[in-house]
């Protein structure tokens, strides 16, 4: 069973990121005005048949809100605006690299089917501007008037925070050593790199702050190590972790490092990346340089640059990693109950993970339905259910199930609820459950 105290201690980093890190905040863009860009024409959409809810972003949060807001309040006329024309999930992408699933598992899910099954419109367009006074969203395919707007654009990388400030190096890192936590094309590249790794040193970095999917870099390192071991490759994985300890499920990960991958996986805590020399394949830190043959360099994380472009960033006193300026409980932009930001652009210290976004979206759908009918509902916690596969041969996983506590006095999320459990003992049952966990999420987002 879980050691909850151990979990709270070890994973407190994530929760601290939203509050304690504030003192070191650097963002000063909170009050930037949104550009009222108009495309000069209306989008080719049917006339709204009820209050129009526009959802920007077809990831876990946006897809779930589009579906469930319509279910909660059928009068909503829902339009999902998504710039991609092909879905592929970030969650469980690590499993693909180890050959445990196929790309079809990640990508065989249609935006069109999701829209038809759940009675909304999928609009394939890129947001270009927002006029909050006029309640108009501008896209490259025309303007859309809204009554309610939810923006769920996910994350962007922040290379400045790992000391990569020149555009040439940033561009090279994005293309040659992608983090693998934003776009599907990064996953395809990482899959190739991992499958083609024939020996030497593969470095996986872990950023500070509240980054997307806390256990994922450790999980990925374990799976690469598992492949190295299975294929008898003369190589090793080195984890350079900016944090002083594994940020979540520490006991389970350490057990895997020590018991499964001795000599194959090196874990180096408290080693923050301070620069990268791409040509020399060297990572600079405070005390050492690390040479690599290949790498997945995971920079710090911030809200999607779209949030900044639309002038919706929180002041640095509220988020030190450029996240959205929203109400803690109800997700609306402070002072504007028509516009909401959900998913990984939120400033909450929640785990930036799929299950959290999915369950949060169920709740926000209820908030929107209530407000459209002149009501309010009580806050409820999202749920973080997260499996991490630590061994590929055979597939074994560890997991966590967490809820959160809201402190009304502080108007902040202050910790995990007492029912939070970590399941640190790796086993095949949890390995198999990982696959069904993901399938359930796809069903919840795409099916009726």
């Amino acid at each position, binding site marked *: 069973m879980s050691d909850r105290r151990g979990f709270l201690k070890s994973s407190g980093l994530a929760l601290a990121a939203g509050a304690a890190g504030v003192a070191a905040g650097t963002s000063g863009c909170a009050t930037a005005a949104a550009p009222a860009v108009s495309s000069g024409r209306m989008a080719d959409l049917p006339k709204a048949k009820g209050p129009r809810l526009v959802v920007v972003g077809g990831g876990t949060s946006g897809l779930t809100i589009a579906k469930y807001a319509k279910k909660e309040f059928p009068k909503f006329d829902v339009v999902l605006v998504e710039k991609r024309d092909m879905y592929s999930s970030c969650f469980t992408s690590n499993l693909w690299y180890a050959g445990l699933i196929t790309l079809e598992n990640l990508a065989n899910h249609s935006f069109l089917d999701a829209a038809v099954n759940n009675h909304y419109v999928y609009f394939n367009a890129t947001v270009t501007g927002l006029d909050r006074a006029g309640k108009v969203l501008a896209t490259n395919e025309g303007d859309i008037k809204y009554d309610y707007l939810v923006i769920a654009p996910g994350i962007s990388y922040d290379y400045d925070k790992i000391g990569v400030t020149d555009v040439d190096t940033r561009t090279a890192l994005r293309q040659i050593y992608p983090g693998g936590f934003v776009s599907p094309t990064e996953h395809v590249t990482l899959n190739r790199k991992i499958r083609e790794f024939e020996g030497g040193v593969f470095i996986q970095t872990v950023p500070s702050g509240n980054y997307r999917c806390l256990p994922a870099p450790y999980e990925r390192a374990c799976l690469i190590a598992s492949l190295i071991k299975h294929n008898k490759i003369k190589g090793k994985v080195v984890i350079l972790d900016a944090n002083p300890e594994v940020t979540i499920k520490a006991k389970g990960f350490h057990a895997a490092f020590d018991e499964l991958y001795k000599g194959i996986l090196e874990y180096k805590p408290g080693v923050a990346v301070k620069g990268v020399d791409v040509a020399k394949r060297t990572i600079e830190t405070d005390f050492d340089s690390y040479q690599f043959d290949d790498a997945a360099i995971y920079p710090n994380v911030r809200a999607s640059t779209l949030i900044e472009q639309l002038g919706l960033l929180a002041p640095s006193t509220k988020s030190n990693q450029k996240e959205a300026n929203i109400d803690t409980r109800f997700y609306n932009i402070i002072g504007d109950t028509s516009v909401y930001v959900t998913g990984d652009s939120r400033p909450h210290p929640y785990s930036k993970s799929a299950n959290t976004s999915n369950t949060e979206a169920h709740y926000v759908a209820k908030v929107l339905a209530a407000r459209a009918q002149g009501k309010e509902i009580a806050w409820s916690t999202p749920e973080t259910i997260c499996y991490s596969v630590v061994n590929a041969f055979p597939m074994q996983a560890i997991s966590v199930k967490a809820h959160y506590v809201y402190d009304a006095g502080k108007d902040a999320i202050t910790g995990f609820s007492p029912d939070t459990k970590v399941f640190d003992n790796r086993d095949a049952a949890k390995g198999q*459950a990982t696959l069904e966990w993901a399938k359930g999420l796809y069903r919840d987002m795409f099916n*009726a």
Partner: protein
Amino acid sequence: MDRRCFTQWCSGAVLAQGFASWAAPIEDYASIPLVHPDGAPIKASEVGTDEAMVFAYPLKGIPCYLINLGDREPTTQTLTSPDDGDYTNPPGVGPKGNLVAFVAICTHQLSYPTPVASYLRYAAGGSELGGGPGRIVCCAHGSVYDPAQGAARISGPTQNPLMPVRLSHDTATDQLSATGAVGRKFFERFFQNYKGELIERFGPGVYRQEVQGSTVTVPLSTYSRQVPAC
């Protein structure tokens, strides 16, 4: 049999429970004997307490669990399905009144047992996710149900109970049959979610057909190659 004739509604059985007088009834489907793979009838005395047995009912693509609660006595209560409305779960049957049955589809995100794997199982002896003994646990997201209380939700992300299946027991022969269920709209949602998979397994349209004659009933560990003990 006219399955649209809700006989139990008229029979007073629901009213006799003392509550939920306006709850919808269990829908009648054909009475189908539960049998072994060789066709021999399943007898109440043969149903063990260690794991659930699986049978298809009332439609060929709908898996159900037959559970022997052992010493636990099942209760009835008003329960709610977002798809099919309120109902009162049927009482247990058998010599000890401890045999119950449910549709084996998690009402959270519709995980169900297949010949490959079952993530939903009756954890007779307790489990990591489900806690205490005698609960039905879904490994995918941790929903937990109590089969002694009509498979009502105990914990986890599901908001609703498993759908009920009504059994009958012939005291003369000790044989078991399935006679009704709730879930017509729920079944439709399940089919929409898994249509491709069900066509592949059963054939086009076959999964929607009503079970006829008898229904083969086997232990879950026989039915599914993998049953994760989460």
